């Protein structure tokens, strides 16, 4: 059984912060199909379109029929752990400081044998379910889990290397005035975060939900105005070394396309809050996050962007807004590469219209702020990199995969 994590003590400031090291992140182009699946928490392997063979490791020709048609498909993740070993010495600097490390050979019911990381509660000979996960290098690995959940399962050290679990971590939510920000504060607190800092611009100005927010356990309101570089820098100066997960909840939702906006006032405001706000956060908090990626139980783990799914394909009814969200998505992709050396994940959460006042005229389905918050916390616990919340987001994603041009016309009609 997994030993429960112990809440980390306050860090001795004289002690050296462990430099983040990464496992080898080089993969063949084909193997990146596993990374794509892992980013969303799916279990997908190549399946031959001609002979249905399930294939691993990733290949460019089917070992049964030589077909080149080998798309990644969802497959049954169950199997049996045939043999295990505990590695006690490694030539790799990342694994060296994490020894001992268990791996094993899992024979999948679907066919192939997979060498996988092992969860501590799994034993040789047992049935297992495999998960594809992103390791600290951002690339996919397979991990074998016990068939049924076990107590404190998420506290397993090999598992926790792959996740961004808020438990015993310190979270910063950048805008507590929004319904989503408040829901996230509650969800992170419930998930066992040590403290949840909630940023509020001009905290002396009252706002709806404030009372409830202030009463939440382990929640601390801090002054943070994302449109003000000095405010962001001051907040970072005070709190950055104590922020392990940053969740940017800033939002600015207004209707209208590019022509209708008349002038740049609203567009500038939107960019100030969203794009430049993200930039300010990244510049103020990013370097510390990246340096603290291997800092023990409460190492820096994730930078979370809440993005409208219309960042992926413009919805002209909210055309200018969509453009700003697209800018934020592009920035998040850069941020992902920039934070990777620290082993810090960038989680992008995509969602459609929310159940909030700014989407008042939009018909359902809409996403409740609490649903968005809970899904985001689950994604952190699972170590995902891309999350689609709600029917609209899933639908846009599916249609985009089929035909971006068709989607463009449909959204614009």
């Amino acid at each position, binding site marked *: 059984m997994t030993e429960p994590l112990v809440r980390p003590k306050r860090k001795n400031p004289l002690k050296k912060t462990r430099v983040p090291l990464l*496992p*080898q*992140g*080089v*993969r*063949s182009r084909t*193997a990146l199909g596993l990374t794509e699946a892992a980013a969303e928490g799916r279990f997908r392997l190549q399946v031959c379109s001609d002979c249905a063979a399930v294939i*691993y*490791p*990733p290949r460019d020709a089917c*070992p049964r029929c030589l077909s080149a048609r080998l798309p990644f498909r969802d497959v049954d993740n169950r199997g049996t752990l*045939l*043999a*295990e*070993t*505990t*590695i*006690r*010495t*490694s*030539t*790799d600097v*990342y*694994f060296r400081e994490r020894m001992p*490390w*268990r*791996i*094993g*050979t899992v*024979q999948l019911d679907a066919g192939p*044998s*997979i*060498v*996988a*990381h092992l969860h501590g509660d799994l034993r*040789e000979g047992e049935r297992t379910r495999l998960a594809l996960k992103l*390791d600290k*290098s951002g*690339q996919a*690995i397979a991990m074998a889990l016990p068939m049924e959940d076990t107590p404190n399962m998420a506290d397993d050290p090999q598992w926790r290397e792959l996740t961004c679990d808020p438990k015993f971590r310190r979270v910063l939510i950048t805008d507590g005035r929004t319904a989503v920000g408040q829901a996230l504060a509650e969800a992170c607190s419930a998930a066992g975060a040590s403290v949840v800092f909630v940023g509020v611009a001009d905290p002396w100005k009252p706002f709806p939900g404030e009372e409830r927010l202030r009463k939440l356990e382990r929640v601390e309101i801090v002054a943070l105005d994302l449109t003000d570089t000095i405010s962001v820098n001051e907040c970072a100066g005070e709190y950055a070394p104590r922020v392990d997960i940053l969740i940017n909840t800033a939002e600015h939702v207004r209707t209208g396309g590019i022509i209708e906006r008349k002038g740049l006032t609203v567009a500038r405001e939107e960019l100030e809050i969203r794009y430049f706000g993200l930039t300010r956060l990244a510049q103020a908090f990013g370097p510390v996050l990246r340096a603290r990626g291997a800092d023990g139980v409460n190492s820096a783990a994730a930078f979370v962007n809440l993005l409208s799914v219309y960042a992926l394909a413009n919805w002209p009814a909210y055309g200018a807004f969509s453009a700003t969200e697209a800018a934020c998505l592009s920035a998040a992709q850069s941020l992902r590469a920039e934070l990777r050396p620290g082993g810090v994940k960038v989680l992008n959460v995509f969602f459609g219209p929310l159940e909030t006042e700014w989407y008042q005229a939009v018909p359902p389905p809409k996403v409740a702020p609490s649903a968005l918050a809970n899904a985001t916390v689950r994604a952190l616990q699972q170590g995902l990199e891309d999350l689609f919340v709600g029917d609209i987001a899933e639908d846009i994603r599916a249609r985009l995969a089929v035909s971006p041009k068709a989607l463009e016309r449909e959204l614009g009609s």
Partner: protein
Amino acid sequence: MRAPRQPYDGIVVTAPVTVPYRRYSTNTAHWWVGRAVREVVKKAGLESADIDGLSLSSFTVGPDTAIGLTQHLGLSPRWLDHVPLGGASGVVALRRAARAVQCGDAEFVVCVAGDTNQVDSFRRMLSTFSRFAQDAVYPYGSGGPNSGFALITRNYMKHYGATREDFGKICVAQRDNALKFPHALMKRKLTLDDYLGARAISDPIHLFDCVMPCAGAEAFLVCREDVARSQGLKSARLLSTIERHNAFPEDPIQYRGGWALDIDEFYAMAGVTADDVDFVQTYDDYPVICMMQMEDLGFCAKGEGPAFVRSHTLTADGSFPHNVSGGQLSVGQAGAAGGFLGLVEAVRQLTGETLGASVPDAKIGVVSGFGMITYDRGLASGAALLARGTA
């Protein structure tokens, strides 16, 4: 029906050369290969210009391959081969060279394997060993071949009841053999207690189950028997060979190798049986692989490896002489030269040119090769039957 394979009549192996190993070397693979080729030429009483065939095996000669070595060494061969098969290199190089000589494509083929070992070169090789290693092995704890073979060993122990004592017996016997072999890097006696008490590397693999990477080179010459005789060279006749790659891909975890597919033909071609064999040189990257070869090469049935090991001394002077110069486990693993070590020693045993322990009245030897664990199993396998020459 498949056409019968032609025998290797009149083909011999001669001029066995070992360039003494070093744990680390500041020299390049080219240097090691060059020294080995020079020794072969000298030993055979030839000039460089006489060498019209070259076969090279090396992991660390990059960016060069065999062709670059022709210019580097000043050779103008009319037959050239590059055998990047690790532990199977020796057997495979031999069987290809034998056919070249037999068919007249070349008269003197030097088969050489050499690698350098610089500080940290082993680590760098591990992560880039194969695409599957890069995608599906190295990111899993980076234990190198130790962890891959640990899984194979663990599975074998569970299924066939092999114990660490059984593997220890193989290692201890090889060390006894090695203590008489001047080029072995391991100079101290190994006891079963030492073996059992050694630190764990990747359970159930412990320190003395592992070979020590080092620098070194091995080489031999393949030519016609009459040519060898006219040069006044003692030689070993080639009776039979087999080679097989990626055998039994459906086995979920490796417990047998390609030998098992071709073993009947192996002995039939030579006209001998396993009982006629005086000594066996298995590929010993890990003792479980030795045991697997004892089974798959027909010395005992599958699963009887542990009992077979318990019933023999495995020493050069005892019953079932095995890895009589000490094998890689005690001599060291000089990269691809590890795939030549058993073969070169077998030739010395059969030509009476031993440097260390001698198998009494050795007439027939089996040499086996195994290599290239690119994902979860060794892919390449091969074996050769050699007999004492008549000269």
